[in-house]
């Protein structure tokens, strides 16, 4: 049990220095501390509460932005070229040729950064200016969030958001409790409570005393551990221990607490939630990285070519220098120096080959595709007025390559709305009358003054039975629902307001309420109901907790009539074991239960029994004894409970629907068809998660579901096999034979990760102590090993290499391998950090593109997987190789604009209104984006090579003198204007198939996953085609003009340049027309525009006006005019185009025709061999029924109720024996709102705070 926490504990002992000192109401004290910052600049140790996520300010924008932009190597390179160009000795191109594109690039980027940053400024400002009440002098005044400092005392009222990490000092609630909702932090919508120290709670009762408060908190330095806090409060020379139970975290919301007071411990970026946010770092897509690689490749080849050409010059130079007297090389320099100059001249000349414009255009393309996502009406969620939003504009093509989808459950797959759907009472099913969704014309619950309009379930027959009081079973059914729960009630505006630890309970109690069994109030030992108008008080004799072992909850009550009843609800398996008879009704119910589970409803069995007075009297002392037992109390209590819960009589079954969002099953099935693996990562408990898995068809009945135990067996067997150096492949082969799903828990993962962290040597030796860094470095190391062995568990790994791999690493590697072979993986009870870790694991081991979708702040980590960025600053002991071996964190995060706040959306790359839009986002927009960017790149490389490589050929005929083949203006504008717009069209509008077809055939998506559309092969084909075009264009033109003469001769350099340029331009334009599959008028427009711009601008730059202005800059006077006015030139151009286009066209047609039958064969061959050889240990009885009883796995209010700490209207006596011995009956006082002070510290509560507990220890309390 203790193992699960070891991961955190390990770190705690080491890096927790208790140097954080907070003195209440002493701002001056905190300001004096300075920490060593950058250079001599010292920043304040204690930050204020303002957050500043924006990068630039007005003054820093220009220098910072330029600095950042020139961090990009490409920009630096072009800057270098521009500078080189200004040296006349080597200047081969006019300065405009590269300067204009560079300027455009910088401007566009700067504009985008500016817009982004303005958005960040705005959201920062909104957050920083939120109001809160702060103690100033001796009274509370409204101030802004950003004004808060460490040590300030803050007053928070109901529903306000906690501005910083606060130490709870006092609250208006009894027992100094304060209820918070942490939906924005961990995504759980259930209420939690925090408690102040008794001493502060009772002493600090007014603003005056608060102002005089001068305690000192000493605690650990700010860290990212959400569920841990260790510190102490020193006040009045006494020391009190503090833990996370005393802390209100920034971002949580105060609920059901009129007011509470807190002391700011961590502010601003020091708060836990901000520490958890991780670094903002640039995500880059595979294509983007690949593109950069190719650009580097091109750059290197230009360098090589320049070298070769200058070598050519060097070889020919002697002769040229000596003999060709007319060339004015003769002044002064040696041949070697000349060669070096020529190298640089070629370097400049060929720099136009490095496609700078590609960066500009790809930015536009990313931007445009993002805009299309934003504009898509079919991804607009009307009820909330939420359109889809691409928040990150550089990941679109990744959407077309996703292999893994990690999804949150609550709020993402489900609506997080539990609705009472059906029930079965005494073997009869009562479904909703309004199945088709129509509401009954008038409220059927009008007779009931307590009725809650939220309930959509309505069954007239059942209602009739209830109102007639005819059927005892029905009565007991509803009574049980009204009694047996841990819901708290509150009156607000004469309305009852239920607060439940889980939405399921609330749904059940609400249903009972509408059917006339209204839960009115509760005290520590009594429950008041209004049963069909009649108020009845039940004395609670015992409340038997829910936990995951017991899977049931019981309440033992004494009815007003004096008889004793036990009401039990729980999972079918445990309830049916405990029935006193198994008759027809029970059999019926079982059938119905199966039917319910088939419909993926969350079922709960209800049973009761009447307990004889003497039985109770015998049992009661045992219960008491067990509850005060010091050792092994839980087990003893369980035994006692279990003894009581025997011989039950079945009442019925409730069925609650965890409403899925619209279209979730469809979406998931089409994602699966698109070969995407869907993993559900949820903090919820296993049963619920599995149930949802079935509901959304992620799991199916014929799947083999592996659980943690099975996974362990497999991994163990794999490990053993490995030791014997067998082929590791065999052990995992069975995966392919069956549909396999995996259901694992956070505990299991922790186990895996513990082994990770325990991994000694390199990790421990490294000097950087940050925990996240260690986690990451471990992963890095393993991934390195992984890759050294190859990505598949092949036999390739040699023995020597295998020895280096620790058993843990092997295990982990095998785990990921195993998981990735599963059709579906469900991870339950995982913490936010684990979610991110899982994503990171998969990413590292599978090199796959992953997408995380979630709606709550608990998904933020997963969405950003930002923690990876933490390690970047640390020195990497293993050198750059391991770093380069890793892909940088590059997930797509999708946030749902859902109910759990906007945290997820704010950290996401894409924000959607509904889960089902994911289908369209991936299959349509993602696929298109990928297709577009790939086609764009392919064509762009083609056209760059096709039109600009001619310069190299020309060098052979111009004495290697780096004479440009083209006019400078053509080079400057070619990539910017003449050939740009059609390319842009490809990137923005190209569609190979329509959106409807994309959705219909998710299989098309696989091309992206396999990187089919753009890879080295495609790239080389594009380059080859480009070379072909350039060769044809140059040499055909050359051969033709070689023996022409006459007035129409195009033998002069300028005509030749224009003819070659025109031929290239037209050839690549024809090519783009062949490439584009989506011809619209717009496309025609772009073609006409680019050609038009060529002719117009060429005429303009070759006009007399321009020539008169600067003859040197516009030397090609009237050349195009002359070329076009002569037929032979046109014939040359036509020939060039024909030779360039027709062979390619013919090839394409042949491929197109020949591909069709081959494709069909592939499809026919697809059904793969299926053999039967499941591992024996995995065989198990088929799961007839899936119980997914409706409870939260978090601790509810059970303890609070039994201890009576939070109850305002206590009734009856205090004979509850469930109170631990420390709580003497006389301490359980009345706690009225007017006197909320209670002199008791409940150590019990704080000791067992769920966040701190091991997941396995989490006890479900009803």
């Amino acid at each position, binding site marked *: 049990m203790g193992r699960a926490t070891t991961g955190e504990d390990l770190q705690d002992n080491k890096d927790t220095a208790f140097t954080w000192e907070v003195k209440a109401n002493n701002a001056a004290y905190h300001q004096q501390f300075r920490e060593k910052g950058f250079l001599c600049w010292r920043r304040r140790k204690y930050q204020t509460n303002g957050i500043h996520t924006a990068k630039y300010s007005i003054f820093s924008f220009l220098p910072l932005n330029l600095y950042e932009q020139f961090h990009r190597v490409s920009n630096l390179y072009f800057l270098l070229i521009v500078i080189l160009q200004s040296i*006349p000795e080597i200047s081969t191109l006019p300065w405009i040729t590269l300067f204009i594109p560079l300027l455009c690039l910088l401007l566009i980027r700067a504009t985008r950064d500016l817009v982004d940053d303005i958005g960040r400024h705005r959201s920062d400002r909104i957050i920083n200016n939120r109001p809160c009440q702060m103690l100033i002098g001796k009274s509370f005044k409204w101030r802004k969030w950003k004004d808060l400092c460490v040590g300030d005392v803050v007053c928070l009222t109901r529903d306000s958001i906690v501005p910083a990490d606060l130490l709870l000092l006092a609250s208006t609630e009894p027992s100094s409790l304060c209820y918070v909702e942490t939906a924005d932090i961990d995504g759980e919508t259930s209420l939690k409570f925090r408690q102040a120290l008794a001493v502060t709670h009772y002493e600090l009762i007014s603003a005056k005393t608060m102002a005089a408060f001068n305690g000192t908190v000493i605690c650990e330095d700010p860290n990212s551990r959400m569920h841990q806090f260790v510190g102490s409060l020193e006040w009045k020379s006494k020391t009190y221990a503090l833990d996370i139970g005393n802390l209100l975290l920034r971002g949580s919301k105060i609920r059901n607490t009129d007011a509470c007071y807190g002391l700011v411990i961590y502010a601003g970026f020091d708060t836990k939630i901000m520490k958890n946010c991780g670094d903002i770092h640039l995500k880059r897509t595979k294509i983007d990285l690949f593109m950069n690689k190719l650009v580097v490749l091109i750059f290197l080849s230009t360098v090589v070519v320049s070298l070769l050409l200058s070598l050519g010059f060097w070889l020919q130079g002697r002769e040229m220098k000596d*003999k*060709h*007297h007319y*060339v*004015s090389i003769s002044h002064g320099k040696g041949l070697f120096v000349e060669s070096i100059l020529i190298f640089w001249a070629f370097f400049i000349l060929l720099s136009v080959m490095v496609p700078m414009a590609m960066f500009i255009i790809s930015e536009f393309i990313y931007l445009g595709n993002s805009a*299309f996502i934003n*504009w*898509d*009406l079919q991804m607009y969620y*009307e*009820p909330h007025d*939420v359109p889809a939003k691409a928040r990150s504009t550089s990941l679109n093509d990744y959407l077309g390559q996703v292999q893994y989808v990690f999804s949150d459950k609550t709020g993402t797959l489900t609506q997080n709305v539990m609705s009472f759907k059906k029930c079965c009472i005494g073997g009869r099913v009562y479904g909703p009358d309004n199945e088709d969704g129509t509401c009954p014309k008038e409220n059927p619950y009008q007779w009931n003054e307590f009725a809650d309009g939220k309930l959509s379930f309505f069954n007239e027959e059942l209602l009739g039975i209830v109102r007639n009081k005819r059927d005892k079973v029905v009565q007991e059914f509803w009574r049980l629902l009204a009694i047996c729960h841990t819901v708290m009630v509150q009156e607000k505006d004469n309305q009852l307001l239920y607060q439940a630890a889980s939405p399921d309970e609330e749904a059940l109690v609400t249903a009972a309420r509408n059917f006339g069994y209204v839960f009115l109030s509760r005290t520590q030992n009594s429950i008041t109901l209004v049963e069909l108008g009649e108020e009845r008080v039940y004395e609670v004799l015992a409340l038997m907790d829910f936990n995951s072992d017991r899977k049931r909850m019981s309440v033992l009550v004494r009815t007003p009539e004096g008889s004793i009843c036990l009401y039990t609800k729980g999972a079918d398996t445990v309830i049916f074991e405990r029935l006193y008879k198994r008759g027809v009704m029970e059999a019926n119910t079982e059938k119905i239960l199966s039917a319910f589970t088939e419909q993926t409803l969350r079922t709960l069995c209800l049973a009761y029994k009447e307990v004889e007075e003497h039985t109770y009297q015998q049992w009661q002392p045992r219960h008491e004894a067990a509850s005060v037992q010091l050792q092994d109390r839980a087990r003893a209590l369980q035994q006692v409970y279990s003894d009581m819960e025997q011989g039950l009589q079945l009442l019925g079954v409730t069925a609650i629907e965890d409403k899925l969002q619209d279209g979730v099953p469809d979406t998931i099935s089409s994602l699966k068809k698109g070969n995407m693996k869907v993993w559900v990562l949820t903090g919820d408990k296993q049963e619920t998660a599995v149930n949802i898995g079935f509901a959304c068809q992620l799991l199916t009945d014929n799947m083999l579901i592996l659980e943690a135990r099975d996974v362990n067996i497999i991994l163990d067997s794999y490990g053993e096999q490995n030791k014997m150096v067998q082929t590791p492949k065999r052990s995992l082969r069975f995966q392919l034979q069956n549909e396999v799903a995996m259901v694992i828990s956070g505990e299991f993962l922790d186990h895996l990760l513990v082994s990770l962290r325990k991994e000694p040597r390199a990790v421990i030796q490294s000097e950087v102590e940050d925990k996240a860094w260690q986690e990451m470095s471990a992963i890095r190391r393993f991934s390195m090993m992984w890759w050294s062995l190859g990505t598949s568990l092949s036999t390739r790994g040699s023995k020597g290499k295998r020895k280096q791999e620790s058993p843990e690493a092997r295990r982990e590697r095998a785990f990921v391998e195993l998981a990735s072979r599963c059709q579906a993986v469900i991870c339950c009870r995982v913490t936010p950090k684990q979610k991110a870790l899982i994503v990171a694991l998969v990413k590292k081991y599978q090199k796959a593109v992953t997408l995380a979708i979630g709606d709550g702040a608990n998904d933020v980590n997963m969405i950003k997987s930002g923690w990876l960025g933490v390690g970047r600053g640390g020195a990497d002991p293993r050198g750059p190789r391991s770093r380069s071996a890793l892909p940088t964190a590059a997930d797509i995060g999708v946030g749902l604009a859902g109910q759990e706040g906007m945290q997820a959306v704010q950290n996401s790359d894409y924000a959607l209104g509904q889960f089902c839009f994911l289908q369209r986002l991936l299959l349509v927009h993602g696929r298109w984006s990928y297709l577009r960017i790939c086609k764009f790149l392919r064509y762009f490389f083609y056209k760059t090579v096709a039109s600009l490589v001619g310069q190299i050929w020309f060098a052979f*005929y*111009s*004495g290697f*003198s*780096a*004479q440009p083949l083209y006019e400078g203006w053509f080079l400057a504008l070619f990539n910017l204007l003449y050939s740009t717009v059609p390319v842009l069209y490809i990137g923005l509008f190209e*569609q190979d198939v329509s959106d409807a077809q994309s959705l219909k055939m998710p299989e098309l998506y696989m091309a992206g996953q396999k990187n089919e559309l753009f890879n080295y092969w495609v790239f080389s084909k594009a380059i080859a085609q480009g070379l072909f075009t350039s060769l044809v264009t140059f040499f*055909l033109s*050359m051969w*033709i003009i*070689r*023996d*022409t*003469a*006459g*007035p*129409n*001769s195009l*033998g*002069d*350099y*300028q005509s*030749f340049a224009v003819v070659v340029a025109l031929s290239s331009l037209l050839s690549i334009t024809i090519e783009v027309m*062949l490439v584009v*599959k*989506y*011809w*619209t*008028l717009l496309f025609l427009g772009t073609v006409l525009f680019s050609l038009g711009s060529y002719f117009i601008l060429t005429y303009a730059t070759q006009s007399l006006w321009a*020539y008169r202005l600067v*003859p040197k800059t516009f030397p090609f*006077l*009237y050349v195009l005019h002359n070329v076009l006015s002569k*037929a*032979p030139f046109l*014939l*040359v151009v036509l*020939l060039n185009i*024909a*030779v360039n286009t*027709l062979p390619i066209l*013919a090839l394409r047609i042949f491929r*197109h*025709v*020949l591909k*069709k*039958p081959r494709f069909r064969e592939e499809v026919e061959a697809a059904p793969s061999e299926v053999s039967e050889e499941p591992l024996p240990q995995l065989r198990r009885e088929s799961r007839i029924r899936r119980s997914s009883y409706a409870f939260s796995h978090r601790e509810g209010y059970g303890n609070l109720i039994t201890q009576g700490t939070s109850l305002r209207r206590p009734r009856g006596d205090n004979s509850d024996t469930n109170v631990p011995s420390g709580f003497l009956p006389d301490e359980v006082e009345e706690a009225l709102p007017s006197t909320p002070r209670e002199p008791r510290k409940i150590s019990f509560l704080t000791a067992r705070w769920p966040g701190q507990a091991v997941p396995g220890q989490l006890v479900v309390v009803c």
Partner: protein
Amino acid sequence: MTWSAAARGLHQPDNTAFTQQRLPAWQPLLSAGIALPLFFCAGLAFLGLGLGLYYSSNAIQELEHDYTGDAGAGSCAACAAQGQGRAPPPPCSCAWHFTLPELFPGPVYLYYELTGFYQNNRRYGVSRDDAQLSGLPGALRRPANECAPYQFSGGLPVAPCGAVANSLFNDTFSLWHQRRPGAPYVEVPLDRAAIAWWTDYHVKFRNPPLVNGSLALAFRGTAPPPNWRRPVYELSPDPNNTGFVNQDFVVWMRTAALPTFRKLYARIRQGNYSAGLPSGAYRVDIAYNYPVRAFGGHKLLVFSNISWMGGKNPFLGIAYLVVGSLCIVVGFVMLAVYIRFQDQDDDDNDDE
């Protein structure tokens, strides 16, 4: 739901064909219906063009003579030997005799051809000042730096400056015709007026403004390029053909793309020779000034007539013929492939 059809959310995207990516589009499929006619038509068209080009190119006559003066080759050998190793070479003249058995149909063009001459060398090509050549008085006195080392000569600005101008081709030719053997040689008029591009002659190259009506005065204070024997304003006695607008000069300044190039020297279209060169013996008197042997180049004289598509150019016609035939062949192959797989498609459809 409170949303009626008319109510529109604040953030609702526009429903237009553009934003929803539903623009009306045509998908050009590479279907038989389009591809086959395309290839056949293109093939036929290119064949036709190719034939036309080929025959018109064949119809063109060309007469070529290398007068570089390699040892033992004609009278220019002496000139070549004389100029060997001397810069500038001394003036020398030689002649080329040839006989036309029949009429050389007009209009006849006279070219000179240089080989191995890198007019496309970058250093060479940039060594000029277009501003000066366009007649700007300021540029006349301050030649561009690119012209160095032919920027200043003896402290005076060089006009026209630069390597291109300095290396102006300065051989001159005159053509003599002997109708009958023994008859005196008659000089054939060479029309040297419109040999440059119209735009070059009329727009790009301009003389500086005359000073007192004199071009010489306009060029006062400048030096001719070192290799020139005459200043620029004395290139021709014709005032419309001297200075920067001298046609030979303009032709030369339009640098060639390749190391082997022809430049037009004159047209023969006047008087008796408007129909071409009649049969008989001819002599070309060559003023052999231009040294090419230093870099292994050759100087050629070419007589040629032209057709609608320019000078003799067999390659273009052949290329068209080849491309056209290939198109038709590919078309047939494509047809076969289509027929074959069309059948298969039908079979498959039947199976289904």
